[in-house]
């Protein structure tokens, strides 16, 4: 059953020349959670404000269950919002803040405060009810904001980067709390965030770029099979291999400067169209460095030859940057405790069972492509070529 749905929602700010949101369709199942990710200015918060009734859509509908609430003001929609700034009311104590929703709904003061204490207990702040918002830490303020939103008894919770201003440890604690609250209260949640780890808390993730919804999928699916190159770049961690998909008797093959990749039928663009320009996406962790040489011990498959020009530490992992002969760069995640010296000539090959995914090559000017893509796209060898297992220069 649908909890919240946006149907063909468009939005344009006054005096703007382009839409901030373009005909977005979005559905959050009742009791489910959908995270909306996208770069700054992509329209995520605008979309959430449209859902909340704080902005009117230029076109389209907002549905709560079967109820069309597009024309209703925020207070009559049955949604509550928690944003990055908690907007606690300074003139009220913590309990008064949480009791605000029930109070304006006509609940007597004593009863509203009793209810508020129950929700404060849920967010583990039952002992701070008499404090003023200014006396709370940032994390505590966000907990109060969550309790206040839940105390309204509304079924749909809109979270607009609610933990964006908290440090990593607090954010992690808030993620746990959100899980607890979902288990206890079971609200329908639409979460707007730019934190991809936070987005993975949701059952489904939508990717909004330039006001357009590029993909809605389960978090794992999104990482395995981004619908477009834009989504892949937003998620990060992919190596892009531009080339061409050609049909063969053994199934579609992607041919590029790396050589040939035999594609499974469900490998994205390759599966949809049997031929044409396509960018192959390989997860950085699915590549490995191999010794450079005419035969590197790897029986078959694509690969490129290059030289390690840098190694960068990303958390506990180390990423080696390999520059190929056409000066494009490929980042390869090293295995734990693996190391490689800068300047070492190496080959780059996919690991056994590496998942690949092909997306349509963007039909746009070369400036929108990454450096690697741009160079590779102009290589003489980037078109269809014979398959063998040699490393390519």
């Amino acid at each position, binding site marked *: 059953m649908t909890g919240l749905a946006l149907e063909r929602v468009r939005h344009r700010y006054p005096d703007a020349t382009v839409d901030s949101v373009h005909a977005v369709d979005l559905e959050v199942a009742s009791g489910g959670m959908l995270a909306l990710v996208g770069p700054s200015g992509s329209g995520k918060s605008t979309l959430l404000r449209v859902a*909340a*009734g*704080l902005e009117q859509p230029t076109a389209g509908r907002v549905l709560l269950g079967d109820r069309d609430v597009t024309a209703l*003001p*925020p*207070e009559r929609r049955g*949604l*509550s*919002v928690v*944003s990055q*700034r908690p*907007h606690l*009311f*300074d*003139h009220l104590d913590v309990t008064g803040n949480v009791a*605000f*929703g029930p109070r*304006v*709904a006509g609940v007597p003061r004593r009863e509203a405060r009793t209810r508020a204490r129950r929700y404060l207990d849920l967010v583990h702040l039952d002992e701070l009810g*008499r404090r*003023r918002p*200014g*006396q709370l830490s940032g994390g505590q303020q966000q907990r109060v904001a969550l309790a*206040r*939103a839940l105390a*309204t008894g*509304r079924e749909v919770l*809109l979270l607009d980067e609610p933990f964006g201003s908290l440090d990593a440890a607090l954010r992690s604690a808030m993620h746990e709390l959100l899980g607890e609250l979902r288990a206890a209260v079971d609200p329908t949640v639409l979460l707007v965030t730019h934190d991809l780890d936070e987005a993975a808390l949701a059952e489904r993730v939508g990717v909004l770029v330039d006001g357009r919804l590029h993909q809605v999928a389960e978090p794992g699916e999104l990482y395995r099979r981004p619908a477009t190159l834009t989504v892949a770049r937003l998620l990060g961690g992919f190596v892009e291999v531009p080339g061409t998909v050609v049909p063969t008797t053994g199934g579609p093959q992607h041919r590029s400067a790396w050589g040939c990749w035999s594609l499974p039928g469900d490998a994205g663009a390759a599966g949809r169209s049997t031929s044409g320009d396509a960018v192959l996406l390989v997860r950085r962790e699915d590549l490995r460095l191999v010794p450079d040489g005419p035969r590197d011990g790897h029986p078959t498959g694509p690969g490129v030859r290059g030289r390690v020009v840098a190694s960068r530490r990303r958390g506990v992992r180390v990423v080696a940057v390999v520059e190929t002969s056409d000066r494009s760069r490929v980042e390869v995640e090293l295995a734990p405790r693996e190391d490689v010296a800068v300047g070492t000539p190496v080959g780059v090959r996919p690991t056994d069972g590496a998942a690949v995914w092909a997306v349509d090559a963007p039909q746009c000017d070369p400036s929108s492509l990454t450096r690697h893509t741009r160079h590779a796209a102009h290589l003489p060898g980037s078109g269809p070529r014979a398959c063998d297992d040699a490393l390519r220069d």
Partner: protein
Amino acid sequence: MSATAATAVRRSATGLALLWLLAPLLPVVLWAVSSRWSGRARLPQELGLDGWTAALEAGLAPALVRSVLLGLAVAAVATPLGAWAGRLLGWRIARRPRLLAVALVLPVLLPPLAVAMGLDVVVLRIGVPGPLAVLAVLTVLALPYTAFTAAAGFARVGPGPEEQARTLGANPRQARWLVTWPALRRSLAVAGLLAFLVGWSDYVVTLLLGGGQLVTLPLLLGASASGTGNEPTTAALAVVAASPGLLLLVVAALVLRAARADATGRSGRMAR
């Protein structure tokens, strides 16, 4: 700079500011409590309350009441109007905020005497009662102060809390009364005090447009000051006339202190 040195510097600066403010008032206060202070004597030769008695006989009490009422009336009209304009400016709701700002400031840019004389002619022609005309003109003169003070408050608070209240179920009226106004209480209090002072201290507009029907404290003070030999009376009236300004200063200091305490979380509430 160490904390002790910083405190010493702050205290010295406060002391100097108070001296700068109060030094000119000291002779007035001395005059108000003296019966005789002649020639080049450094201090009054004789203390007494003759000035206060004369001031009361000249109509200090009714003039004081009229001044208070006029100040309150100006504050009562100019503060909500200023809050409305301040909301348009502070939340950038106005389509042409600069035009609105200029329109608000224009009346105080013109010389009040010229404006009052011009308006006097108009008011006489159309038959508007003097006190009402005074109230209307002083409200216009107070509006820039109330509007810009309120605008700063609205800009500081932002529309976020009001929107938040709406999403929690409050209708627009509830959101304004239960959330926005309480958040703006300090700004609005200062705006109201400024408007009160405009009404309280006005001389020219009340004199010309009031047509003698509205004898306020500044008019009494002006009449007394234009005479000679009644310095104690003039000083007594001046002390009363200066008191709301000093009160405003004290209130503003307290407001700033409370705001600073709120911002840093170091208020008396912490102890509870």
